């Protein structure tokens, strides 16, 4: 393997600032939407006392899960000694931090009292998985920053393998923690499953890889840097394998649920009778988000084209958002079994009368806030590659040689 040189992203200034300006518009609009919701209160959103976590949580959890997944590309380099991944590590770490910041921002701005965040930092309830997550997120940012430093600074390079291992372990714990937010909700049929945490980990692999691939292709293309086809082929194959793994876990999750009698109704809801949630599950998540991209990347011809890889990555990301929507919102829309052997036939508080799903019509503000968070993540990554030496000058196959590991 030849020595790899890294250089700042060198596209012409007007173009660079143009891209940032576009992202800036989304960012500003997202910020205004957050202010609007905060000023008026959550009544301007579609959220209510039944669906208490809405679209902002869908975006936030997706970004957080993808963040830990984006770090895998670096982790494969240092933990599993895959040299090919080492050259990809810097961007991977930068992307991971940016995605996490974007996700956290959305999460915080959706709080009823965001200004009290300091309370959350000082009045810790150590029993709460949510409180642990705050700690995990902050830790992640610090650890990945140190890890990135060990990659970039020769004097620190002897700590690189250790930092990589710590970062990798931390990211596994972090995704477990995120998944456990749902796993701990014993009252809701859709969430009470030990498989939630491992499923989130495998989803993070897929979403992180999809975003990484797009970012790599985008930055290299604009800067005219060579990107080897073999390297790209390896990454897109990984994407396909991760998508297949998600599919496997989703199947296991729903099949094991079907075996537990108390979950039959929830399964029927998601898989058959849930209206919008059923459609989203089958069409959005399984078909468009997993099967089609798998078909593309493993297709002998399509899988070799850049267009194919881009489409597959975009679909996996779309499927990821849909997956979060089905899990977060669908799980709440399914009425809780407050009286397992009775049917609620009237209620003064929308308790899922006659098993009807609970109502949620997301507002535009919630989407704008979420998109603002995505813009933050993208802008932070692009600023990162612009000012730091994160991107290899070339990733030609002769340079990275995928067959040496």
């Amino acid at each position: 393997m030849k020595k790899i040189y890294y250089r700042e992203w060198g596209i012409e200034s007007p173009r660079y600032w143009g891209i940032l300006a576009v992202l800036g518009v989304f960012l500003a609009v997202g910020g205004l939407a957050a202010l609007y919701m905060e000023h008026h209160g959550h009544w301007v959103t579609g959220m209510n006392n039944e669906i208490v976590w809405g679209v902002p949580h869908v975006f936030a959890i997706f970004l957080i899960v993808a963040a830990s997944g984006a770090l895998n590309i670096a982790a494969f380099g240092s933990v599993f000694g895959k040299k090919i991944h080492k050259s990809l590590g810097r961007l991977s770490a930068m992307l991971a931090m940016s995605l996490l910041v974007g996700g956290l921002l959305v999460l915080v701005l959706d709080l009823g009292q965001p200004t009290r965040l300091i309370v959350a930092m000082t009045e810790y309830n150590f029993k709460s998985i949510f409180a642990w997550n705050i700690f995990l997120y902050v830790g992640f940012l610090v650890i990945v920053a140190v890890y990135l430093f060990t990659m970039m600074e020769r004097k620190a390079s002897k700590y690189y393998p250790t930092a990589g291992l710590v970062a990798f372990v931390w990211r596994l714990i972090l995704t477990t923690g995120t998944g456990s937010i749902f796993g701990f909700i014993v009252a809701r049929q859709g969430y009470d499953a030990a498989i939630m945490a491992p499923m989130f980990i495998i989803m993070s692999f897929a979403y992180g890889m999809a975003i990484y691939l797009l970012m790599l292709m985008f930055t290299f293309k604009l800067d005219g840097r060579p990107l080897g086809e073999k390297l790209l082929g390896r990454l897109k194959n990984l994407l396909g394998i991760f998508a297949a793994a998600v599919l496997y876990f989703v199947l296991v999750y729903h099949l094991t649920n079907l075996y537990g009698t108390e979950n039959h109704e929830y399964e029927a809801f998601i898989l058959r009778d849930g209206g919008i949630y059923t459609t989203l599950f089958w069409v959005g998540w399984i078909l468009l988000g997993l099967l089609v991209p798998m078909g593309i990347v493993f297709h002998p011809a399509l899988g070799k084209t850049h267009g194919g890889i881009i489409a597959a990555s975009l679909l996996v990301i779309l499927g990821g958002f849909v997956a979060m929507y089905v899990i977060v919102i669908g799980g709440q829309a399914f009425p809780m079994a407050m009286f397992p052997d009775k049917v609620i036939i009237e209620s003064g508080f929308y308790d899922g009368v006659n098993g009807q799903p609970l109502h949620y019509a997301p507002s535009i503000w919630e989407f704008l806030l979420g998109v603002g968070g995505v813009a933050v993540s993208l802008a932070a990554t692009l600023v990162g590659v612009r000012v730091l030496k994160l991107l290899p000058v070339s990733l030609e196959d002769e340079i990275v040689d995928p067959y040496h590991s």
Partner: protein
Amino acid sequence: MSGKVDQRRREFVSVAGLAAAASVVAPGVFLQATAQAEPRSAPVSSKTRYGMLIDTTKCVDGCSDCVSGCEKENGLDLLKMPEGADPEEWDRQRPRWIRTVKVKDRLTGTVTSLPMMCQHCEFPPCQDVCPTGASFRRVDGIVMVDRHTCIGCRYCMMACPYKARSFIHEDIDEKLTIAPRGKGCVESCNLCVHRRDNGGTTTACQDACKHGAILFGDLNDPNSEIAQELRRQNNTELRADLKLNTGVRYRGI
């Protein structure tokens, strides 16, 4: 240890309550507010466990006096629909501490009406998940939200098996000093905690119920009416399978 923490919280809450009273009430009324706060009963004690017994056989279909009673007592009736809100959406967003529910048995077809509120779990999931500890259980069994540390994350609402909690979706213009309330926080039935701290022996929903379906009292005091009633006849916990040991019990379902 946990007793200590609860004691601290209780003190904090009452101090905060006084502060809120001082800031909300006009100077003239202030004296009265202090006077009201004075006859506090003995400190909260873990010997007590407050709870309620709901006799669904007495609860009358179509009646919602307990709901109106609670809403008046706790200032929920003062909330106004924000201008420009969609009435249907708003109805899903406005807070309720107690509601009536009508259920039909899947097997027998028996129809039962009953009021539901926070069940004051001994092991409250809402407390376990709350990141800041704002959701807490007093040693006397009352589960409530400390409005000053709640960050409005709504995790407790996700975790409560009885959908007992409400989020305040709008600005609050008017509120009662006994029930402080603010946009962006979560709240729920607190067993009329202000009455406890002032030596009251009933709850507003109990007082409002003309049919005597609601009985409040100290579950731990063998001589209390509620303890005797609980001993006298079978009673059930909602979702007993979750083993939360609720402080609110039902008869006749």
